[in-house]
């Protein structure tokens, strides 16, 4: 419902609900299955990482570019090599078909303080385009009714 959408005080550029952001993030494994090019791009990647909205990140196990497990954090004693967590507002903007300037790239979001990148960054940097495209997958569904 439109009335449930919120504009946060941090100047988020598009309306969203935190729950909708989490639900959209949950669609990523299914969207990846349908993207053979992206899966192939990640064929050399095996990593356990923590990704998602800062309010509800997920543990992802990626093997040969495929997400073989995704579970909401926290999980008891589950480790990860790196994490990329962004505010729900950041994901809502990043998933627009035409994202607003400065909200259109994972590292634009870290530069503006809307996302944090932590841990051993090697798998993230060695597969940077894979992760940019992976986390952009919900854009295809027109998040929030985006045209």
């Amino acid at each position, binding site marked *: 419902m439109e009335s449930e959408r919120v504009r946060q005080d941090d100047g988020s550029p598009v309306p969203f609900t935190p729950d909708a952001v989490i639900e959209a993030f949950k669609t990523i494994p299914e969207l990846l299955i349908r993207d053979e090019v992206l899966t192939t791009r990640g064929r050399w990647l095996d990593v356990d990482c923590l990704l998602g909205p800062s309010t509800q990140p997920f543990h992802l196990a990626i093997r040969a570019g495929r997400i073989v497990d995704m579970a909401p954090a926290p999980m008891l004693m589950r480790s990860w090599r790196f994490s990329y967590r962004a505010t729900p507002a950041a994901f809502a903007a990043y998933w627009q078909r*035409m*994202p607003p*300037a*400065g909200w*259109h*790239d*994972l*590292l*634009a979001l*870290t*530069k*503006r303080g809307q996302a944090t990148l932590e841990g051993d*960054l*090697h798998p993230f*940097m*060695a597969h*940077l*385009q894979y992760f*940019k495209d992976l986390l952009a997958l919900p854009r295809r569904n027109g998040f929030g009714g985006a045209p």
Partner: protein
Amino acid sequence: MNGFIEPIIGRYVHVEIDGEVNRIYFEENGSGIPLVCLHTAGSDARQWRHLLVDDEFTRHFRVIAFDMPWHGKSNPPDSQYGTEYRLTTASYTATIRAFCDALKLDRPVVMGCSIGGRIVLNLAIEHACEFRALIGLEAADFQQPWYDTTWLNRPDVHGGEVCAALVSGLIAPGGPEVARQETLWGYKQGGPGIFKGDLYFYRVDGDLRGRTGNIDVNQCPLYLLTGEYDFSCTPEDTLRTAAGIPGAKATVMERLGHFPMSENPSQFRRYIAPVLHDIIDKQKL
């Protein structure tokens, strides 16, 4: 059309830079006012191929784009193989001036993008009388770093892939997909450590804060244009820089990022055409 040959001509010119002859590859088309185009860090002059074949611009301008030493088809200087490449304000400035001198260009216009935009500011500071006009794309006196450049050249990360992936976010969304991929291809083809070496100028050696206030645009007009989606050199960076240079003209370009001339040539044309017309008009005065 099968068999169509573009009017661009590519040649090599021998240019003495800092005491050593460099074999510099350049492409050109058109006649009139010399317009020298500088590519971005880690790429090469192919970024300018659309401007080079623009019928209207090449009626008034001799458009010239060259590969910097170590880039594209310009090899490293013979004495420098095996050394770590580092571009500096002094070496970049010397290269541009030597190239223009070697071609005997009469007060050319210089247009540079990114590091090319930054060095244009230095040309305006130190050598304005040698140029007819200067155009800085994605240019500012300084901008905040947003990643660690050591990731660009290490044996356990593919240099071409990481360079392209990093700059991919600087391209505005919604532009032509082929132009986006072609822009990134330039980064995938760069030599090892060259993008990083260019960024030594950008990040470490080329901080021009506090030096641009003395630029005299009456001696040499200065135009600054920056894409709204450039989060490396942001529109705010450019506008701040322009605000400190009396008479400098600054424009924020919609639906463009850090590589306007190659990522979306038709959109860029809308913004660069009035600038080039302005330069032509000034010649008539």
